[in-house]
């Protein structure tokens, strides 16, 4: 049946049209602008999930504004080992999150603004959203040379990336979110987004690296607040709605039932690391042992973030064969994670012969293996 606006006025439809009796009515019409009061990346990503799953965006598209304390956010189908320096993240206590939308890896800190445009699936339109942002920036600072590239990036001076985009489409709703670099720490950004891990082979979505610049560097009078305000103003104008920002607390379970579970799920190892598409590691360990350097070839297959198969090419009898096969067997099914591997190896050592030489070799091998993770 072809549904045209005129059909809606047809008699048979109006027969069954009734006013909903209870609850869940639109209290107002028009777009909604929401800002998160939290800087926790997991909480904010959970809000996106919640809105995507639970809100009827037909009459009320939503603009969601959020900022995070230092975190690296990888795309849905990416490999964190390939994308960032996990060792550095752990050292600096920078969080790692996997979002549900596609695209590449980004670094967030309080100098970066995140914007999410929620619409129905029909009204999903990334170009329009980005043009809105560019319009807002130009209204604020007309001299800014910003434009939207055909890769859905926003470029400054046709050179520097100041915004990246990703999107998620569901059955009836969709969202498009993007970053905006106001005054982020570029030094940390470039160091955490450089992976030290060698020999990784995977079909995970790779990131495309780009030179970045902060808007603050272009014009030191700009602040995140000013940029947010300009964007909100433009959005309100284009959607004919009030320039009114609703503050939202992502920890409020009463307002957002189920949000705590969503937040927890985003933090589980199974989601962050376990959702990595299958990959293999093929590399060489350079183990320094007693004034000599051993070249040890290692091959591992990792599926769902766990070691599926493992082969370590040690010199013959360097470890007793029985112990070597015990180690390899135990590594199978183990998380591809330094902590899990270390605790596994050291616990296993308790039931090995109490030989200092053996222990130091075992520990050396373990430490080198862990460097791959």
């Amino acid at each position: 049946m072809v549904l045209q606006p005129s059909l809606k006025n047809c008699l048979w439809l109006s027969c069954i049209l009734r006013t909903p009796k209870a609850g869940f009515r639109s209290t107002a019409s028009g777009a909604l602008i929401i800002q998160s009061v939290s800087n926790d990346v997991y909480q904010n990503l959970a809000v996106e999930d919640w809105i995507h799953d639970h809100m009827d965006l037909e009459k009320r598209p939503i603009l969601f504004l959020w900022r995070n304390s230092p975190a690296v956010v990888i795309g849905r189908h990416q490999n964190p080992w390939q994308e960032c320096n996990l060792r550095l993240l752990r050292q600096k206590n920078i969080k790692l999150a996997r979002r549900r939308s596609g695209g590449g890896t980004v670094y967030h800190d309080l100098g970066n603004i995140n914007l999410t445009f929620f619409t129905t699936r029909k009204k999903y339109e990334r170009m329009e959203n980005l043009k809105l942002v560019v319009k807002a920036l130009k209204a604020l600072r007309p001299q800014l040379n910003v434009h939207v590239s055909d890769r859905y990036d926003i470029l400054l001076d046709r050179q520097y990336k100041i915004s990246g985009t990703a999107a998620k489409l569901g059955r009836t709703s969709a969202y498009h979110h993007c970053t905006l670099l106001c005054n982020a720490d570029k030094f940390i950004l470039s160091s955490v987004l450089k992976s030290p891990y060698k020999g990784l082979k995977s079909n995970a979505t790779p990131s495309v690296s780009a030179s970045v610049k902060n808007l603050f560097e272009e014009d030191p009078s700009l602040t995140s607040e000013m940029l947010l305000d300009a964007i909100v103003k433009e959005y309100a104008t284009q959607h004919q709605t009030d320039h009114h920002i609703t503050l939202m607390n992502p920890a409020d379970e009463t307002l957002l039932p189920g949000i705590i579970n969503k937040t927890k799920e985003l933090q589980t190892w199974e989601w962050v690391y376990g959702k990595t598409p299958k990959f293999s590691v093929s590399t060489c360990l350079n183990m320094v042992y007693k004034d000599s350097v051993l070249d040890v070839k290692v091959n591992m297959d990792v599926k769902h973030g766990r070691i599926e198969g493992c082969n370590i090419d040690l010199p013959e009898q360097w470890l007793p064969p029985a112990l070597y096969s015990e180690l390899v067997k135990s590594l199978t099914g183990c998380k591809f994670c330094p902590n899990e591997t270390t605790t596994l190896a050291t616990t296993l050592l308790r039931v090995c012969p109490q030989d200092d030489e053996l222990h130091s070799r075992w520990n050396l091998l373990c430490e080198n293996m862990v460097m791959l993770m």
Partner: protein
Amino acid sequence: VCIHRVRSCSSIRFIKSKYVCVFDKSALKFSDQQRLFRTSAVSCGQIVQFKLSDIGEGITEVTVKEWYIKEGDSVSQFDSICEVQSDKASVTITSRYDGVIRKLHYSIDDIAFVGKPLVDIEIDASKGVAAEEDVVETPPMSHDEHTHQEIKGHKTLATPAVRRLAMENNIKLSEVVGTGKDNRILKEDILNYLAKQTGAILPLSPKAEIIPPLPKSETVPAAPKDKARKIPTPISRPIVFSGKDKTEPVTGFQKAMVKTMSAALKIPHFGYCDEIDLTQLVQLREELKPLAEVRGVKLSFMPFFIKAASLGLLQYPILNASLDENCQNVTYKAAHNIGVAMDTEQGLIVPNVKNVQVCSVFDIASELNRLQSLGSAGQLGTSDLTGGTFTLSNIGTIGGTYAKPVILPPEVAIGALGKIQVLPRFNGKGEVFKAQIMNVSWSADHRIIDGATMARFSNLWKSYLENPASMLLDLK
């Protein structure tokens, strides 16, 4: 003109007579656009090819990234089938039908094409006849779906899954208010209708809107109505527990624990327990805590327990020994590497403080701080986790009094410390006073350690802790 997916169903014959002119007009408008127009009638048990629907933005191909189902799985309408990606957009594809998956047309990382079959689904036999029609257009088009069902002369919009739910609960769809698009009846509408009948309190409907802080008054008028509706007699329903057992393989660290604990089982354990009066130590720690804090260290009771244990081990070195596999030789370890059991997200880990015999209480406290922060961050290294000779487990921080700790091979003894309780005790003068009491439970390897040795070690350790000043005499 808003273009939607066109669907014909068996009931189209009914409406054709009323709306045929409109239909023809619009058909004329569409004819100049590129379209594939297919009609297929679907009957029970038939295998239908579910095609990849339009993604939007003129996209014609996507990469399949993850399957949520496999061949042979049952699916319901709107269940997630797979995740595909196209140019930074991740799309969740949901099922249009209830049925069983019979074939997946793509593997992970394959390119899938819009308009081509994605999966084959065998339609649920109980569904009855429903006809579907697909329209695929190359320019960007909107995405919409609904099923018409004619019920008693009313055109009620509802999906087959929703109709079945209504049928199972003896609900007339004509009496249910639809809140979906074009007043389509959604699953939550049925649930709401049911809730009102039974007076049950439902969890918030999935289609709930956020009510901004301002218009809270909206909800007030609704309340009295709800209260009035709660009076009808509730229909009793049998309580159905739908939980399922979950089996997981034992892997990684857990596997290693299985090995270690099985080996520990081979050690003939004996236990020895006692009660320690920590009243004086509690006072001493209160005095020393600020001093340690100034130096940047958090001082707990453990450093005292650990140092006292080391002093005891100097007198009874057999407790710091190791028995070889064949029980031929006993090795007396020179270093007192005292392990401290830590509970982390992963489970039990036991890092150790090295060479306690040459450490001061402050040194031990400082090292404990380091191990604890590394432990909670999951960053302990191999040297921290190996080489232990004796272990203390402060289970009392979680709770408990007496315990039965298991010796960690290749060690021969372990102590478990219960929580500190304030209890009434008699002093030397026969008066009752408030005492800070902690219980200790030792386990030792009876192959090389006898009860008397354990008891004497425990008494010595106890005396150091009950009278901390005596530790000063023997501190090395």
